[in-house]
């Protein structure tokens, strides 16, 4: 079991070699494929969801900006809405061992149960390879990949960059807006927004 994640990471490293670390993914291009292990030890590969919309969410339970959206139930509601319309939601934790927000599988499972996290899979990326390949800077940092595997949104969860839960009700939820536009076959109107939050706690 402990070796599984590193095995998956090694597999990912093969993909990642093609593009240098800390590269950013561009909207309108094919999203970088990756393989990671989820909290149950199951290997999840991005390309296996081809044909479905996939939402990526960078997560750190210790970050107050993440807490803003979980304690208020906003993130869970967004996850639920996404899955109800058939989208896949992958929550990714790129916090390195020893850094804030890092979790082992069982710890993450406990948190999922406690906070009723609604994502399809909660993926562990302690080496930060996927996070860096996507240029994930903050928690939360959101990406949406459409059915053809193309990146169509990247940025913050909404347009109110504060840690105050009171700001959620007046904010534009960029992810929900993009999902509904994708569903009705429209172009995503806000395809890039400023991500806000804590920095992703990478190993190096």
């Amino acid at each position, binding site marked *: 079991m402990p070796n599984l994640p590193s095995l998956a990471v090694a597999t990912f490293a093969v993909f990642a070699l093609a593009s240098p*670390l800390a590269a950013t993914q561009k909207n309108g291009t094919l999203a970088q494929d990756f393989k990671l292990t989820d909290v149950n030890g199951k290997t999840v590969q991005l390309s296996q969801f081809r044909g479905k919309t996939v939402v990526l969410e960078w997560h750190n*339970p210790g970050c*107050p900006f993440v*807490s803003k959206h979980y304690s208020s139930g906003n993130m869970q509601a967004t996850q639920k809405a996404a899955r109800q319309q058939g989208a896949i939601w992958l929550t990714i934790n790129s916090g390195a061992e020893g850094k*804030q927000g890092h979790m*082992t599988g069982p710890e993450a499972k406990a948190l999922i149960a406690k906070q009723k996290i609604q994502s399809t899979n909660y993926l562990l990326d302690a080496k930060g390879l996927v996070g860096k390949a996507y240029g994930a800077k903050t928690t939360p940092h959101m990406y949406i990949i459409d059915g053809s595997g193309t990146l169509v949104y990247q940025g913050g969860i909404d347009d109110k960059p*504060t840690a105050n839960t009171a700001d959620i009700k007046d904010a534009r939820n960029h992810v929900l807006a993009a999902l509904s536009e994708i569903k009705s076959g429209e172009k995503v109107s806000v395809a890039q927004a400023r991500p806000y939050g804590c*920095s*992703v*706690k990478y190993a190096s």
Partner: protein
Amino acid sequence: MTFDFRIFSIMLAFIAFALAPAAVAQNRLGNTELNVPATLVAESPKVRAGQSVTLAFVMEPKPTWHGYWENPGDAGIGMSFDWTLPAGVTAGKPQFPVPDTLLISGIMNYVYKGDYAILVTLDLADNVRPGSLPISVKSEWLSCTDEICVPEQDELSITLQVVGKDAPVSLDKRFNDFRAAMARPLGSEATFAVSDDRFRLSVPLPASVEIDDPYFFIKQDGIVDYGAPQKFSRDGDRLILETGARGDELDSITGILKIGDHIGFLLTATKGEVAMTGLPLANDGAKQEGSASLLFLALGGALLGGLLLNLMPCVFPILSLKAMSLAKAGGSEAVVRRDALAYTAGVVLVATALGAILLGLRASGAAVGWAFQLQDPRIIFVLLALVTAIGLNLAGLFELPNLNFGNKLTRKDGAAGSFWTGALAAFVATPCTGPFMAAALGATIVLPPIAALVIFAGLGVGLALPFLLIAFVPAIRSRLPKPGPWLDGFRKAMAVPMFLTAIGLIWLLGRQIGTDALGLSLIFLLTVALILWWFGGGQIKGLSRGALTSAAMVVAILGGILALPGEDAMNSQKLANVSAATLPSETFSETRLSELRASGQPVFAYFTADWCLTCKANEAAAIQRTETADAFAAAKVTVMVGDWTRPDPDISKFLEKHGRAGVPLYLYYAPGKEPVILPQILTVATLTDLVNGPVQSAMIAKTR
């Protein structure tokens, strides 16, 4: 690793914090529970209606904690301000000090690690009644360590007293320091361009301004890739930046260009064309790699430059003849190679030694450039005597002594002769290096000393390269024209460029010491020529007058040097040159200004800084001009200069009073009248019209 419950507790604490805003509002001024506590202070607790007062949010991060600039970078959040102000009071935009960069795992943060202060100006309307003036503001900001972040907020308040027009107002001295940490407006507009994922910015900044570890902090998000390394280069009066781009949506951007510890300029840039030209600056991020590639580039430039020097009028004659003599020695490969190597050694040693002296002088703080040796008239005179002697030698007046010695003392001195020819070539060639070598030699200033010396040596190798080729590639040597009677004619013709060089040196000397002293110097030069003539005459008759000639030469040259005017005379000559175009001025002070105004004197006051290109351009084009100086002298205008190169709180306040955030500022005080603010772009006419009457009233009307 086990799950860290401290983190969880911070998170839970935050949730409680966020869910109970009512409780949060209990926080009071300078709350020490916070990691980056804020205190609100006023520059003066007493204010007058119709005036303004500056407030400061004094932020004091606990050790290991930091706060954020208005654009936090890749992560983090800027500070927010929600004011509650009495009627008639308005708050200006917050001004942030120059931030620092903090790069963690490729994520760039724009932060403040030590104590810092954010300034906000409150404007009071004329109708604000005397009495107490309660000011309160609710602020939110993010406090982080390298590991964790905590959003903090506080409700800060202060009560000011509105006092009457004549009541004394004392100012908090700390605000001078707060202001000194702010970025100052650059005064000239920059240009930026985004293409192929690269962001380029071209900033007008005088070449003389020293820059240490520059960084551009952009205010707008989505244009620059914050984490990408920033590469800078300087091209004359422009500083050019290239880094990664994120987007291209804006036509105008603003930001802070940091050029040293807490020294920064506020600038605005509009979209345009920016070419990456000039000399790269070694930056912290790319220092290693940058230096190495810069070194190779500069070394290539130096080699090429040295090679081109062979064609210079001051070098070509020496070298072409040397080449011939090498070809002559054709028979013995070993001799040719030895001579070429000796020559190369001479060139490289002298080039490196000159470079070492240059670096040494620079390190000691003297402002010297390459060819610095030509700034000393004594050296010019020696060179002049030398060049004239070589010219006379080429013309056939006498034979060079080393050839004599060479005949007598066999091969060893042949090599020594080659060595000295090389040394001479390098020494004479340096004034010709300028145009070809400017960039490569400029690099020596930013490179570490050892690398800089390598470049000087490279210059020498380049200069010696043709000889090495002739000596080591027999095919080239065999292609050289065979020596014959034509060689004598060629040699005599080569005296012409040598004498041209002598004329150039005479001109240079004349500029430095004046025509009177030049006349005397030329008489000594004639003496040198006559001694050589006499020496040459002896050679024809088979007499050796070498020892006597050498002695006479030394006397003549020493006499020439001693006859040169002293330092004082030269300084006065320089002053005479300069004062023709200089406006006499005194240092600006408000006390002196009011004195002059009280005594009914007209005053022209201008505010400038070494880093302000607009200022320097105006000074060259309009202020430091004979016409202006004459007109001002005739009208008895006192000129005052305020130098804002370093932050000066008095000048800052004076500028602020005149509605300017920065330099340039040009003011004309006609006796008994309100001051006139002149336009930012000056012409000679603008200034002379001030004192020549009729246009003046029109000017006042226009600037109001």
